[in-house]
């Protein structure tokens, strides 16, 4: 077991973890933050995408020990975030989710697109979304929702 200190959603946490515990299992099972979903567990599907040190990361292939000292935000940590608020509204308006399994990871990626690529067009949004699989929506609503927020931000 290894002791780690990690800030999750603004709160410092100390925990003793097995080195093989990935960050997704750590937030879900140690901190009971179950908003983060796990799909493929090998980096492909994007369901587990969370924010580590300010950028999106796959929490299924980042081990919690390797994130000692990091600042982590899970989907629960964005309740007061203006961009995330706008994205949630847009996802709802554009029918960008059905079952919702992909949505937490989708929103983290969407927020990164909106903040990092303010001029992204549909093509670029789709390129950037390639790492987040959705088995329900067919992506049209998701792309529209992200574009909606990008356009709002230009006003």
């Amino acid at each position, binding site marked *: 077991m290894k002791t780690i200190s990690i800030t999750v959603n603004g709160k410092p946490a100390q925990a003793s973890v097995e080195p093989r515990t*990935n960050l997704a299992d750590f937030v879900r099972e140690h901190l009971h933050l179950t908003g983060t979903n796990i799909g493929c567990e090998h980096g492909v599907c994007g369901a587990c995408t969370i924010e580590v040190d300010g*950028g999106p990361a796959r929490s*299924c*292939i*980042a*081990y919690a020990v390797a994130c000692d000292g990091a600042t982590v935000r899970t989907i629960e940590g964005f309740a007061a975030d203006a961009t995330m608020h706008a994205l949630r509204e847009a996802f709802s308006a554009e029918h960008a989710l059905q079952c919702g399994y992909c949505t937490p990871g989708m929103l983290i990626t969407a927020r*990164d697109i909106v903040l990092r690529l303010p001029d992204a067009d549909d093509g670029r949004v789709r390129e950037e979304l390639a*790492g987040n699989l959705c088995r329900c929506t067919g992506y049209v609503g998701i792309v529209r929702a992200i574009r909606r927020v990008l356009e709002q931000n230009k006003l």
Partner: protein
Amino acid sequence: MKPAKFDYEKPRHLDDAAKLLAGANGEGKIIAGGQSLGPILNLRLAQPALLIDVRGLTELSGVKEERDAIVYGATTTHAAIEDGRVPDAANGLLRKVARGIAYRAVRNRGTLGGSLAHADPAADWLNVMVLLDADIELFSARGKRSVRATALVDGPLSTVIGADEIVTSIRVPKLSPKARWSYYKFNRKPGEFAEAIAALVVDEVRGLARGIVGATAAAPSPIADARPFIGAFDPTKAAHAVTAAGFLAGSYEYQVHLVALKRAVMQLSS
């Protein structure tokens, strides 16, 4: 799946990392971004006893600019290259390639050194570093050495890097400001590993015109003289290059590699 149990160390100094690795009797593995190793561990394709995290080592981070080359620390991430947070030795080639590797969430953690050590034949950096004739600098408890990227791979997913050696940096020769390049990656979805790669570089100042056919069974296949592909597509020479890369004329692989080469030629002349 969940990985088998392993121990984990995050040493502060390169010397300590090398000692830990040498002392692990082949049961130790370096971990950098974990973006290739993580999936392998989770699938239990590898079950090392000890992981040695090199992300905290200052010796492996940062970038040094020399007169003729840029030396990238092994833990430079794909995202840092994509964002231009580090200089580009190849007039924008590195930035373009970085953006096409995996997805942003993977690029934020995945590293140059990790990608080269993993040496997936379809990995982008392997192909780029062979194209640019970069050197890979290694360190172990036995000492330092350097291997040319062109001599790195000795089989599928296999390199000449010793079990006790750590990649410290990658020395990429600078292209002159007028040099031109092209890089065509064929894949079905953005961010996937390539099914075929072809790339060309022409630098008159350095007297250089070469290319590669990549995403082969092992090492990228060099095109030592790329002049027949400057401004024109020589189908006979192209067929020869793709055959030399190990593909059987008429096969699907042959066809996609030939098309990749054709598109790399078109990119270069546009």
